């Protein structure tokens, strides 16, 4: 129930914010998703989708930061025991 899946906005439709929707691609599978909860979302954004609604726009920089932190973890570990 808490599972939300990331997808990429291909196109946006609708002027009324409550009915604004997008075609979102989940690795090639395209579904119609409501953008009512993310008025600032636009084409090419990645969004987290839950029960037919986009819940937020994924922050690419933050995603890269976590992956980079995990890479650095490895470097520290490989460097051997603490002096």
């Amino acid at each position, binding site marked *: *129930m*808490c599972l939300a899946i990331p997808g990429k906005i291909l196109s946006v439709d609708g002027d009324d914010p409550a009915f604004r929707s997008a075609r979102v691609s989940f690795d090639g599978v395209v579904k119609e998703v409501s953008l009512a909860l993310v008025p600032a979302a636009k084409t090419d954004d990645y969004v987290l989708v839950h029960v037919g609604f986009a*819940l937020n726009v994924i922050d690419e920089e933050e995603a890269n930061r976590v992956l980079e932190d995990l890479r650095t973890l490895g470097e520290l570990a490989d460097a051997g025991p603490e002096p």
Partner: protein
Amino acid sequence: MRYVEEFRDPAAARRAAGAIAKAVTRPWTIMEVCGGQTHAIVRFGIDRLLPEALTLVHGPGCPVCVTPVSTIDAALAIAATPGAVLCSYGDMLRVPGSGDDLLSARAAGADVRMMYSPLDAVKLARENPGLQVVFLAVGFETTAPAHAAAVLQAKALGLENFSLLTSHVLVPPAMEAILGSEDNRVQGFLAAGHVCTVMGYREYEPIAERHAVPIVVTGFEPLDILSGILGCVQRLEAGEPVVDNAYARAVRRDGNPEARRVIQTVFRVSDREWRGIGTIPSSGLDLHEAFAAYDARGRFDLGEPEPEPDRGCISGLVLQGRARPADCPAFGKECTPDHPLGATMVSAEGACAAYYKYRGAERVAGEEQA
């Protein structure tokens, strides 16, 4: 798939597990709140990567699991009403009420329809003015804005044949209830990532301070969970009971303001009964008086709630982290996904279902582990 595969990299997972092992100097008990996290942990074997001294305890973050029996009985009563259609997420359909479940009712002729989104129910109502369409609105804060937005759409469309049968629960009061119980062993939490996508994490700060527990907002992929655990362990070892965000690509401190706005417009906080646990004050959401017209409880004559029969299900203890699925004498024997005694074996986020599905030969209670 972007934002999925990168967070499942096995080499990074091993590095994170190594860092956790190095950081742990004494026993700690951490609870992951969300059932989706429980499933990821069991599915990817994350618990097996962790040092012995670290105990992961599964929490009550399974909204299907905690929906009261009386709500399922109400759904059954609606489904049995001529001209009414009961629409629901898939895993609610197999949870037993005081008698049967919704799937059996459908087999017997009731109009029960499985839906992916509450918007599908709004569409059904719009296209079928002669039907009374009711959506069984179950969920935590993650799903509440979707239900609220669906009600607002129905209102904008002037629909008179759409209503919600709500069963909404809130996470922070559940965490407080667990921390406040006498035999609580939980020392740190992995907060539910998508609940926080909606609500932000400000409301966890007083909990962390008052109970001196670190809380880390955590996602759902293996690397997210390992990062969350590592962060929590570091704070426990340093004695720092603060709130951290290990899921920053999806969570901001103030959450999603528009989502919070629609929740506040359509719902109000109420006391709520949690199946297997009891009533937790101010832990649920009901429809606001201004939206009473969309409350199925007002539209249908639902009668008095039946008492829940004792089927031998210990899911209440499992949901509070006080028992494991394998502790239950019925696990894997009388209680299986095909024949569930309780909700934790049915739900996609239930702990019992996770262990049954992913732990194969170990799953039958009482058998020696290889």
